């Protein structure tokens, strides 16, 4: 990837950031390319050193400054010992994947319980309307109200659960990629 291609892709990835910030970032990257070229490196080499434009854009979106990012890049270039990668693999085998699967199972279980709850509500309402429940009508009305409250609670839990599961999983994947690329111990 040459300089123009890299800058275009980075500019596309930075699309949602404020114009002033994008301008500053693009200027820093251009300066970095110019410096590299004056040192005799090719555009492709410099682009490879910067890494994937999407990943770089994400780092800028996370609030990182260009100098910090370049410091990290240098660290990676200077010596990647592979401990980060080993950690990611081992952690995911023993903890990470299991943890996310358990959370997913909890969400699915909550969904099933909600289904059963709504089913029971339907049966009670239908029985009351059809006049099948006459003697125990008061306890069944209380049971109905209880089940409605349980349903509301489950809906809230599911909405928040699914939302934060998605967000958490995204952040977790990003953290894994970060550890994979830059290792542990440095932010």
């Amino acid at each position, binding site marked *: 990837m040459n300089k123009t291609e890299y800058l275009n892709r980075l500019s596309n990835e930075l699309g949602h950031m404020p114009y002033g910030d994008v301008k500053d970032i693009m200027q820093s990257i251009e300066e970095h390319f110019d410096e590299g070229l004056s040192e005799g490196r090719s555009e492709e080499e410099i682009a490879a050193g910067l890494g994937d434009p999407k990943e770089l854009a994400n780092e800028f979106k996370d609030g990182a400054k260009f100098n910090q990012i370049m410091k990290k890049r240098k660290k990676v270039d200077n010596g990647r010992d592979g401990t980060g990668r080993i950690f990611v693999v081992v952690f995911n085998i023993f903890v990470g994947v299991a943890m996310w699967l358990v959370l997913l199972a909890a969400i699915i279980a909550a969904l099933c319980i909600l289904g059963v709850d709504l089913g029971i509500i339907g049966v009670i309402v239908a029985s009351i309307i059809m006049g099948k429940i006459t*003697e*125990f009508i*008061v*306890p069944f009305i*209380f*049971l109905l*109200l*209880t089940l409605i*409250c*349980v349903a*509301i*609670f489950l809906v*809230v*839990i599911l*909405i*928040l659960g699914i*939302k934060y599961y998605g967000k958490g999983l995204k952040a977790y994947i990003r953290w894994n990629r970060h550890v994979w690329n830059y290792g542990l111990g440095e932010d």
Partner: protein
Amino acid sequence: MKKGDIKLLITGAIALFMACFLGIITLIVFAVKLGGKAMEYDWKGAFGNSCSTNASIED
């Protein structure tokens, strides 16, 4: 956490509290109703019949 999420969380907490509260009331109302039924039930007649039946079988 956004404001909407906090509102949702408060709704969930209130719903959980109400579910527990109404659940206890439901159990009490069911217990009272079933207790009343049990008091009305002809236990002597029910067991008396079965005892006499057993006795007649033994005879």
